[in-house]
Structures are given as C-alpha cells and as structure tokens.
C-alpha cells in the first residue's frame, strides 16, 4: 500500500518534470529592440536614495493604499497594486482606474508578479521591509515614501504627492491637487465657524469589538485625521499619546471618561462592523456627556484614514456634514 503510494508519487513527479522543458522567454542573447530614452529624471526619495529614471514613469506599481491613491489622483493608472479588494472597500475617494493587476498583500507583495509586469517604477512606503525593497530594486527603480510621520502628517502627505508627481511627470496635476485640498480646508473651516463650531473640541476614533471586549483606537493630534481636524479650526480632545508614525493610541471605554463634552466622530466600515453600536447598553458609554448630548457621529464608509488629499477632502466633506447637521 505504502509502496504503491510512493511509486505513484515518483512516477507523477517524473512525468511533470518532463513536461516542464522549454522556455517561456527567449534568452538575453537574442537582443530586443531598445527605445531611446527621452529626458532623464533624477530624484531623491524619502530614505535618501538617489533614483534615476529614463523618463516619466508610465508603468507604475504601488504597494500601499495611500500611494495607490496618490497615483490615481495624479491621473496615472497603476499597472499593479496591492490588495485590490481591500482598496476598493476602504478607499472610495479615488477609485482605481484602468485594470491593475493584484500583486498580493500590502505586507508581502509578490516579487514574481511585480517582475512579470516589468514596471518602469515601483512606489513603496517605508513600512515595507527593507529586504523586500532591496529585491524590488533589482526588478525596477523603487522610490520609498515616508509611510506616516506624527510630527507633520499633512506635510508628509504633500511630500509624497510631490515625489510621485516628479517621477511620473505630473507636477501640474500635483499642484492642482494641493490647491484643491487647501480650498477644501478653507471651505470646511468657514462652514464650521458659520455653524458656531469654531474651536469646538473633537475626538476622532475607530474601534474593534471582539467577543465581549471593546478596544477604542484614538486618532490623536499626531494622526492624519487629527492634523486635518486642527487645520479645520477644531481642537483635539485626546490626552493619550499616539505612536510616532501614525499618531494612534489605544484605550478602552473607561478611557473616554476624560474627554468631557466633545464632538465624537468615528470611522467604521460595514465590512468590519460598528464597534460603537455595540456599546449602546454599556453604562459607562451611556454616562458620557457627548453620548447624552447626541454628539456622536459615524462617518461614511470608504474614507481611508491614512490616505492622500482626495481621501482627506472626502473626510472634510463628511465631517462638516455630520457636525453641522443637527
């Protein structure tokens, strides 16, 4: 019995090996026609690495959702992106254009797939492991964008737009994007002031429910949402300290008691469930002043909290809507 099994395995393997002869690509000795490059582009990415491109990149692969959004917003349809399904659910502000190939998860993009796409440029963030970036550099020029920096979230967002625009030759579009964002901020700020919410205290959060435990994730002043809130003239109410990259902190329901009388906004996604609706019966939650006053607002799905200018414009619109609609 066992011997039969082993023999079958051996024969099958041999047959498969024989079927695998031949080549899928001519060897490099057969030269392909090379097209002459236009103007060379030299740029320094956020990790200080110098990258030279033969011209504005056309076939671009991106490994993280915020840089995918940047590319789409700049009018460059990426040829390969990470986690198409997740992006589609979480980022509706900048829907994917063209028909990009899925290159796997954001943490472990498949280098095989990227190599097969033969891109002119790979845009990665500093969250991607250095070993992988090193391998990607063999495949194509790679620019690394700072994933997030709690010290200056909006500056970081603009820097990544500028860098990607320079690599893809879309600087004019980038300027327009940044102008739109500023206009959106000014408009939102005015709308809030008109509604008497200038300088109002705000706490943004999202949360997770697992069995009978709730954890609340605080978007502190160092987070992108927190930074945008402050630009809108709102005051951040969180006292907890966020992490140095994303400016996020974790707390529990008890930890909300220190917030006082604030506007409480939270992000949820139908794919994920709504953590705060699970608190309806919790005595601590019910005793919070902002819950009693009805100042709890769920923002619409599909606003990516760590995205680019487009996502942030969508965030400002939905925030102003939520706060001014009484």
């Amino acid at each position: 019995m066992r011997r039969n099994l082993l023999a079958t395995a051996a024969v099958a393997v041999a047959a498969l090996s024989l079927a695998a002869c031949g080549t899928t690509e001519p060897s490099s000795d057969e030269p392909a026609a090379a097209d002459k490059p236009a103007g060379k582009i030299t740029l320094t990415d956020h990790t200080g690495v110098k990258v030279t491109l033969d011209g504005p990149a056309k076939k671009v692969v991106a490994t993280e959702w915020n840089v995918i959004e940047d590319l789409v917003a700049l009018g460059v349809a990426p040829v390969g992106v990470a986690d198409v399904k997740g992006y589609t659910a979480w980022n509706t502000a900048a829907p994917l254009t063209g028909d990009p190939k899925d290159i796997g998860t954001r943490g472990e993009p498949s280098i095989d797939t990227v190599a097969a796409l033969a891109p002119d440029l790979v845009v990665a963030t500093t969250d991607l492991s250095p070993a992988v970036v090193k391998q990607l550099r063999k495949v194509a020029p790679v620019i690394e964008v700072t994933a997030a920096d709690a010290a200056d979230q909006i500056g970081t967002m603009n820097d990544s737009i500028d860098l990607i625009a320079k690599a893809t030759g879309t600087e004019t579009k980038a300027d327009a994007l940044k102008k739109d964002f500023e206009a959106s901020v000014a408009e939102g700020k005015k709308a809030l002031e008109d509604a008497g919410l200038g300088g109002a205290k705000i706490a943004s959060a999202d949360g997770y429910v697992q069995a009978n435990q709730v954890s609340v994730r605080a978007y502190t002043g160092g987070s992108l949402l927190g930074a945008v809130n402050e630009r809108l003239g709102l005051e951040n109410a969180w006292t907890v300290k966020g992490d140095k990259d994303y400016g996020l902190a974790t707390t529990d329901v008890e930890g909300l008691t220190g917030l006082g009388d604030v506007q409480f906004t939270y992000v949820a996604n139908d794919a994920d469930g709504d953590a705060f609706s699970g608190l309806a019966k919790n005595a601590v939650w019910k005793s919070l002043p902002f819950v009693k006053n009805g100042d709890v607002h769920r923002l619409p799905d599909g606003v990516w909290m760590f995205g680019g200018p487009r996502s942030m414009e969508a965030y400002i619109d939905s925030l102003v809507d939520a706060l001014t609609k009484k």
Partner: protein
Amino acid sequence: MAVIENTAVGRDRTAAATTGAVAVAAGLALLVVVLAAVDITQGTADVGAAEVWHALTGTAQAGDASVVVASRLPRMIAAVLVGVALGMSGAALQAVSRNVLASPDTLAVNAGSYLSLGVIAVTGTTLPLLASSGAAFVGGLAATAVVLGLSGIGRGTVRLVLAGSALALGLNAVTEALLLLFPQRTEGLYRWGQGGVGQNGFDGVAQMAPVIGVAFAGLLLVARRVDALALGDDAARGLGVPVRGTRITTVVLATLLAAAAVTLAGPIGFVGLCAPALVRPLSRRFRGLSRSRVSLPVTGLVGAALVLGSDVLLRAVVPADLAVEVPTGVVTTVVGGVFLVVMALRTRDTAGADAPDRLRIPGRTAFLTTVVVLGVVLAGVTVGAVLLGDSKLLLGDVVNWAQGHSGRVVTYVLDTRVPRVTAALLAGAALALSGTLVQAVTRNPLAEPGVLGVSGGAGLGAVLLVTSVQAPGSWAIAAAAFGGAAVVSSIVFGLAARGGFGQNRLVLLGVGVSAATAALISLVIVLSDPFDTTRALTWLSGSTYGRTMPDVVPVALVLAVGVAAAVARRKELDLVALDEDTPKLLGLGLTRARLGFLVLAVLLGATAVAAAGTIGFVGLVAPHAARALVGRRHVRVVPVALLLGALLVGLADLAGRTVIAPAQLGAGLMTAVIGTPYFFYLLVRTRR
C-alpha cells in the same frame, strides 16, 4: 471556600491535615480578596480608591459610579472567574490523565475558540455577544472532541497531549493566516487572541458564571472517583469505580470550564498548566490537600490569584494608557512560565518516559527503497518549486538562468525564487535533524525545538533585532536568533542538567520557557509597533518571503556539520535513546553525550529560524514519521528524517506561494496545515 468532608479513613490524621488545608485555603482566599480590591482601583479613567469607595457606598457622582459598576467590577469578577475556571480545569485534566502537561492550552480548547472567532471576523458577520461567545464555545468543544476522539481517552497520556498540541498548532496556524490575509477585519482579533480580562459591562460575566458554577459542582461530585483513578486503572476498577466513564465526565467538565474562560477573556495562557503545578508541592506538605475534593477548589483559588495578580501587576507597572495595549494574557503567560520553571526545579522527577512505541523493524531493502523514493520525490518537488509560482517557468528558462544568459523577467523571478526554495529545503532538513536529536536525547516524543523553547528564544532574539534596527543583515539576524536560542536553551538545559536531565523536568521547563518567549514576542510586537502587527506576524509565520542567498548560508553550514556529527555518532544516539541504564553499563558518559547533541540541536534550530522564521511541527513530525517508516536505528532514521523535513517545508513553501497567489502564506502556517492531518493519521494508526 473549600468544603471538607471527613472520611472514615484515618480520622485522627485527617483532623490535623484538615487544619493545614483550611489554613492554606484561607490564606489564598485572603490573597485573592486583597488583589481584587487593588484591581478595582486601577484603570484608564480617573477613578481611584476614594472614588471606588464612594461608588460602593452609593455616594459617588454618576460618571464615577458607572465606571466602577460597568467596567471595574466586571473586569475584576471576570479575572476571578477565569482564574478559577482555568485552575480547576487544569487540575482536573492533570488528575485524570496523570500527566503534568495536560491543560486547556495543550488540549486545543483555546485554539478552537480562537479559530471560530477568526472565521466569524473574516466573513464580516457581526454577531451579538451571546452568539459570538457561543461560537467560541462550540469551537473549543469541537477541538477537544477531535483530540479526545482521535487519541482515545485513557489510552496513553502522552498521546493525548501530543494530539492536543498538534491540533492547537494547526488551528492557530489557520487563524494566523486569516489575521495576515484580512488585516482590516481582524485587527481586534489579534488582541483578543492574547487574552484580556476587560469587559463590556456585566453581560459576559452574567452569562458565564452559571456555566462555570455548574461545571464546578460537577467536578466536586466526581472528585472522589478521580482520586480512585490515581491508584491506577486496575485498582480503581477493583474499588468499583467506572474508569472510562469517570474520565469522560471529568474531561468534558474541564473542557466546559476552559471554554467558558476563553469566552470571557480570550485564551489566557498557562494558568491551567501552572496553578496545579503550584498546588502540588503544597499538597505534599499539607496532606489534606491531596484529595481532589479539596485540591480542586484550592487550585481554582491559585488560578484566580494568578490572573488577578497579573492584571494588578500590569496596571501598576505600566501607565494606564499603555496597559490597555498590553493584554493580561501576556503577563499571565510570562508569570506562569517563570513559576513553572521554578516548580519544575522543585519537584522530584518521578515519571520516566513512556515505553517506546512498538514498531515493525523493516528490512534493509525497505529502508533503501524509502530513501530512494523520498529522494526522487524531493527532487521533483524542488524542480516544481523552482518552476511554479506567480509566473510559471519551464526548465529551459532555468538552464538559461544557470548559464547566466536568461531574459530580464526570468532572471528576476529566479533570483527571488531560488533562494526561497533553498531556504525552505535547508530549514526543513535542519529542523528535522534538530527534532531527531532532541527526541533521542530526551527519549520524549513531545520534545522538539519548538517545545523546548529553542525556536521561541531564536524568534525572540530575531524579533528584538528586527523591531529595533532598520534593515539588519542576514548574519546579524542569524546571530540574534542564535543568541536568543542560546540564552533560552542554556536556561532550560542548564536547569535540567542539575537533575541529570530528568525526562519530565526538561519538557516542563521547555514548555514554561517557550510559552514565556511566545508571550514576550507578542509583547515586543504590541509595544514596538502596535498598529503594524502584520509585519511581525509575517516573520513569525515562518515565511521564506524576501530571502536572499546570503540568508541561507548559516543554516547550510550548520546543517553540514550537524549531519556529519549525527552520522559519526549514530551508535551513541541509539544508546542515549534507549534508556537510562544501558549507556552507563557500556561506559558512555551520558550527560556529556546528551549535552553535545543538545548544543547541536540548538544550533540547528536557531539557524533554521533565522533562515525561514518560526516553523513549527517539522521537528515533531519528521522524526516520528521516519521511525514509523524505517524503525528505530539512527543510521536509518537520520537520512529519512532529513529528507522528510526538507520535503515537508519545501511542499509547504510551494503551496504557500501558489495557493492564493499573488498573496502569500507563510511556510510555517502551511507546515502546520499539512502536518496536522498527517500527524493524526500517525496517531490513529499506532493505536494500541
């Protein structure tokens, strides 16, 4: 409180013993009360001792009162309930199986619950509290049923724990894969999986308290029969105790307790293993504790003190904001691990190893056939692994690549793929050899690099380096992994050596230390990068992702040395694996030979971890399977185990790269998924 009932046996002696037992129980109860009082004054809200006092006397502000009632009290009560349930569950399981390693953790209750919640989270259904608790409950019960069904109750205790650990590994691997594939949806699940006693109001406590109460009462009812089992099955039958029935009843009740605890607080590691180990030396001092009816509740109290103490310690040491991020389960596991190590040193090692499985001894031809066939299959898998992936290649491409004139795409693909295949094959072989050596030296089928903490130590060293240094080199990672493994294994083996490497002591130490390292790894991940669990999880799931050729040099070198040494010393290996006395009779320095083999095993395990992350299972399965195929002699076992290990990890890596391409699954997850069913097949087949 413990109910003490005088029996007709030795009434005068019992009286003295009873006072001792009562004193112990009272002391423990007092400790629990003090800890509970401290616990309700701790938390993120600005509610300290004074406010709690006001709330309890009904003179507080509404906000403070609600914090105490809806957050602090449920948390404290949950901690007590969970501790009691886990402590009793572990005590009952250990009493019934006469095995100090039996516990809810090793019976896969936690793993089953964790997986069922993971599946719910991924499908995106949001269930009310009761339903998701129910799902966790069903998952835990189902896992235990599988373990018990396949290993057979009362058919050898080692088999029970083996089956349980195997299933737990497999289930956890699947859950981790889900965590990695759906990071958005499972964000909360990872934290839950570390175990925390925080509660959203009283609902959970109110629902689980009756379940725990019923199981508690049930255990007290069967306690005397359990005591009879301790005399041995035949003696118990002689006293008219239904052996099988008692076993089944006790195990079901213990599982019920453990599942209730998991439902309340997630898998809180180790309390079920540790509390009984703490009570055991006490029961030698106070004779009254030697009866289950007394020792079960006392163990429950110890469990409660452990969980509460960990929670208090955590909130006292770490600032309140951060304490939310550090799961209580991590602390119990570390505390429990340390306790277990201390206990292991204090206990006298009584039990020897089980009698070795009886195996057929196949002839020379059978051995050669096995090696040749395995070699051919391995060659085939290697070829397949190089050709298959996101982009399929053909042999001609590989020939071109080897001669250095392949086209651009093929060059890239093979440059990234070949190192991965090599890393997988070498790591698999190294782990298999490491497992073979450890199992020979300890004469213990449970022993493998993972169980003894070698993998855990290596993982901890590597994770510390990966999270603290930007872009460490491959030799640096190998060195860090080896450093961690060396520290951990010198603790384990150094402590075990003091008693001349006693069987159970070594494994007990290993289990304690490896659980503690696993918890510390989680802690490092949570503290260093709380919102990027994916990165560290990826590495821990035993992935060959992103490996380059220099990364596999360390493991290749160590493997070459290891194989040479194992072949040269094959006779000694056979003798060491035989029993305690034969080598001594033949004048072989037992301790020295063992130490040499163990050092080699640690080196192999550490470099394998550095090359391919923490891959479980291979060190356990490959030697077992090899012995089943070609008998017990190491001259035959070593080559077959090497081939099997390489084959297993090679296949796992291939599957991980192709099954859900372009997304990837770690080879470590796949070895567990592939290895678990095979392992069960082995268990069922060798039923005696």
